[in-house]
């Protein structure tokens, strides 16, 4: 009898677990739909306004900039969803990963920053890459990394810096080093991160209270994916905050320094 009761309890537990998984899956799909629909809707309306003769030509530049920003958001969202589903399918991304290649970290940073400039410009934010620090830290060396994954990690941090940044502030990308690691520091001024939230920033689907108060919708995937990408490279990502200033550091082990540079 005890055995039957135990089995019944186990079935009930599994049923509840399945129900919870279904619920999470529905919420996830709704979130994906919401996140993808919002920028697409904005692009569609911008195109309609661009075609409308009543909207003065000098204001159409704003619309073009909006289309570019929304398309950038969309591309990064799709890449994040794709990487997320790959992670769920294969925890270590074994069959999805490329071979590491030598990448110039300064060129890579400049290219990624250029992608976000229009979005930042809309909020009066300027992003700059401290070239001198890159030359000092990396010299003629490249980083041996999986370029697409690392680009995505940097983009996720950059996108947050823009999204949660203060109007008319600046974002700096600076090369940095320690005795056994080298990397990129992204410094921005924006919403303060509470101590209790800072501990959980890299958890899957986590969004801090101040982030939700600034922008209601979001996936909470960005920093989680960034931390996973850095872990694949035997590196790490960390955050330091002081008031409204946040510093995210993406660090790689020095053994990833390669003697030759290629394109960023």
């Amino acid at each position, binding site marked *: 009898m005890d055995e039957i009761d135990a089995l019944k309890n186990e079935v009930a537990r599994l049923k509840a677990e399945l129900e919870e998984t279904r619920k999470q899956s529905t919420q996830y799909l709704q979130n994906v739909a919401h996140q993808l*629909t*919002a920028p697409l809707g904005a692009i569609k*309306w911008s195109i309609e306004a661009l075609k*409308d003769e009543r*909207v003065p030509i000098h*204001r159409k530049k704003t619309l073009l900039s909006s289309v570019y920003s929304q398309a950038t958001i969309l591309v990064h969202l799709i890449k994040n969803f794709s990487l997320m589903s790959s992670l769920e399918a294969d925890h270590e991304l074994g069959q999805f990963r490329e071979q590491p290649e030598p990448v110039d970290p300064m060129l890579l940073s400049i290219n990624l920053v250029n992608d976000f400039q229009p979005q930042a410009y809309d909020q009066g934010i300027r992003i700059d890459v401290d070239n001198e620090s890159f030359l000092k830290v990396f010299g003629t060396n490249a980083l041996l990394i999986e370029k697409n994954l690392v680009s995505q990690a940097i983009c996720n941090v950059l996108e947050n810096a823009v999204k949660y940044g203060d109007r008319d502030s600046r974002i700096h990308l600076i090369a940095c080093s320690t005795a056994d690691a080298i990397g990129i520091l992204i410094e921005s001024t924006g919403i303060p991160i509470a101590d209790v939230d800072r501990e959980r920033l890299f958890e899957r689907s986590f969004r801090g209270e101040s982030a939700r*108060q600034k922008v209601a919708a979001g996936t909470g995937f960005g920093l989680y994916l960034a931390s996973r990408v850095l872990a694949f490279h035997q590196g790490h990502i960390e955050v330091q905050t002081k008031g409204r200033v946040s510093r995210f550091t993406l660090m790689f082990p020095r053994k990833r320094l390669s003697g030759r540079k290629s394109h960023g």
Partner: protein
Amino acid sequence: MVSILFVDDEPTSTVALRLLLEAKGFQCECLTDMSSALEFLRQHEVAALVSDIMMPSGNSFPEIDSSETGFHFVAMVRREFPHLGVVCLSVIGDQSKINSLKRQGVLYLRKGETPLNTAARIIESKATGITRYGG
């Protein structure tokens, strides 16, 4: 000039609509949270309100969950400014909640799904009390 207040935490999502309404002669203001929007409504003459659903509640209402701010905001606006024309603009589509908005006399439009010109005309008619067809 007739003024329309937009409340949306992602202002780029409504920039096309605002530019079209401005081209039609309206003055559009855009705020990003419920608290500042309520404060604005108390201090300025506004002909119509266009509000997002999922947005921050701001400093005055920390207890409100951001996924439902718009519903609380609209209910409060309805009580305090019963004659103000209100349009909700969102991408979320919980039909029961949309029905409850409709029961309060609030129009609900989906961002990007309702044609831009139609959305602008609906907001225009809310702001002026005049319904026009065409153009």
